[in-house]
């Protein structure tokens, strides 16, 4: 379809039809101070010149640092086959199909993605994916509110501040009562949780491992939460599920998470991948698409979009969510990534992350003035306390070639000297030792 811009006559005709004098008049409800001052676009340039400008901008990013930053997004290796398969034009250029059952390949890839998510989380049913870990957690919270008919949410403060902020922002015009419970020695404080837990509580939200990297078995808390008729929600780091007790085994009702670590490159602003799985009794409250498997009239296996009466195009304003698509390409990357690793490979990936982080803990704890927090077990990320503010240390470590971690003072008051360090399978023994040496030299 060719692009035909409006002519001056078209514009005049439209304006006179609606009785407006100019295009500016259409924006008169927006105060002048809030309108764009100028778009400040330079004159057009050749392709070559544009490539140079953008290349120079991109070169301002530090890309050569050895990465020990996590805080919700992790530097994992992505096998070349992930790009090779997902860049096939059948997948790469396809928009969400409006006659989905005609796109059996697309449906099958999502069905397999959903199956992986169910396997990893050990919950009954997964949807076709959501935008990112934060929006997935918001949708899970709204599921709990609809399911219970209650509006009190207990939120563990070990949940990533980005997610907590998203929950508050998304719901700022709804009457939802939030209670945040503190983390004590890395773990969610049960005493505080049980103090606030009551029969008005819709859900309790945890993160595992939590923002400090601490791993916990929430089974006891989940059991208590259920006694009050509330739902238990966990946001999890999918790679950790290769070795940790699964949210399904802990009894969680809804599990969400950021799927970036499953074959999606780190990039500022995404696109990332939200995943969600739930107990089958909540399936009708789930947002977004769900692909199901069935047999056709000849008895052959086929795939369909199922339970669509939850969705916006059928249920209109009563839909479970305004999500009416999914993050298909990123979900495909995750499906390819997980299938390339296989069950054994996925477990090994998790174990390498854990072992390398444990090795890093040992090395860092030998540095005078560095205290590794060990009150809780961790997966591939842990907290250290430095003798100086972490922000300054991060600056000095960049000069040494390291992105050394996330300063916890940015998210938590009074933790200016604390640094969150992540160690993935990509970090070699040599890098970890050099990292420890450099840290010692800058303190």
């Amino acid at each position, binding site marked *: 379809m060719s692009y035909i811009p409006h002519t001056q006559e078209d514009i005049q005709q439209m304006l006179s039809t609606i009785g407006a004098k100019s295009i500016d008049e259409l924006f008169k409800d927006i105060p002048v101070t809030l309108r764009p001052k100028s778009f400040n676009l330079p004159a057009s340039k050749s392709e070559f010149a544009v490539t140079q400008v953008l290349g120079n901008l991109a070169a301002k990013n530090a890309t050569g640092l050895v990465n020990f930053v996590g805080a919700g997004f992790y530097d994992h290796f992505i096998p070349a086959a992930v790009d090779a398969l997902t860049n096939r034009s059948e997948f790469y250029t396809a928009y969400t199909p409006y006659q989905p059952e005609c796109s059996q390949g697309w449906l099958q890839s999502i069905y397999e993605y959903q199956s992986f998510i169910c396997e990893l989380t050990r919950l009954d049913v997964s949807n076709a994916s959501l935008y990112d870990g934060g929006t997935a957690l918001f949708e899970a919270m709204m599921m709990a509110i609809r399911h219970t008919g209650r509006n009190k949410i207990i939120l563990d403060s070990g949940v990533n501040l980005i997610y907590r902020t998203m929950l508050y922002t998304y719901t700022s015009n709804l009457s939802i009562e939030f209670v945040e419970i503190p983390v004590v020695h890395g773990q969610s404080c049960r005493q505080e949780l049980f103090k606030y837990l009551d029969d008005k509580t819709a859900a309790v939200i945890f993160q595992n491992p939590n923002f400090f990297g601490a791993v916990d078995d929430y089974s006891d808390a989940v059991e208590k939460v259920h006694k009050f008729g509330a739902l238990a929600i966990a946001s999890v780091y999918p790679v950790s599920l290769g070795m940790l007790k699964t949210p399904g085994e802990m009894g969680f009702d809804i599990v969400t998470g950021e799927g970036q670590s499953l074959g999606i490159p780190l990039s500022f602003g995404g696109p990332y991948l939200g995943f969600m799985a739930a107990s089958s009794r909540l399936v*009708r409250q789930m947002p977004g698409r769900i692909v199901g498997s069935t047999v056709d009239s000849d008895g052959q296996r086929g795939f369909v979009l199922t339970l669509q*009466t*939850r969705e916006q195009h*059928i*249920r209109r304003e*009563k839909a479970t969510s305004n999500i009416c698509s999914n993050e298909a390409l990123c979900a495909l990357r995750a499906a390819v990534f997980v299938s390339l690793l296989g069950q054994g490979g996925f477990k090994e990936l998790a174990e390498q992350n854990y072992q390398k982080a444990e090795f890093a803990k040992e090395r860092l704890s030998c540095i005078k003035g560095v205290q590794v927090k060990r009150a809780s077990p961790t997966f591939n990320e842990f907290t250290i306390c430095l003798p100086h503010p972490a922000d300054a240390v991060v600056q000095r470590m960049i000069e040494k070639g390291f992105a050394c971690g996330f300063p916890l003072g940015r998210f938590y008051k009074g933790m200016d000297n604390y640094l969150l360090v992540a160690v993935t399978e990509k970090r070699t023994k040599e890098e970890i030792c050099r990292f420890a040496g450099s840290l010692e030299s800058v303190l």
Partner: protein
Amino acid sequence: MNIPKNLFYTKDHEWARIDGKTAYVGITDYAAHSLGDITFVELPKINEALKQAGHCATVESVKAASDVYAPLSGKVLTVNMQLATNPELINQAPYEQGYFFTMEFSNEAEKVNLMDAASYQQYLEGLSK
């Protein structure tokens, strides 16, 4: 179209069979027909307080999801658990095994807002014109 004589009807195609202070509630043959094959029903909770014309249940068919409104104000006594596994009962026997729930109604006077079989028949004829 089956419109039993002894029931009360709403404009939203719910019916109520009144027995003392108790009412059986469901959707009419006309509603079940219009929706097509019903695949799922979301029923109210026992003891839930209902308001006349307020939302009380949701029915999903292969075509649509529709809200069901309470014919009278009151409190839910029992819900028809059979519908959880056999929602097709609503299509097969909308006035018997396909009922939704029973309720204790609180305001006798609200009955004036309901139609008898003859008025409902007339109402349906009006709709098809």
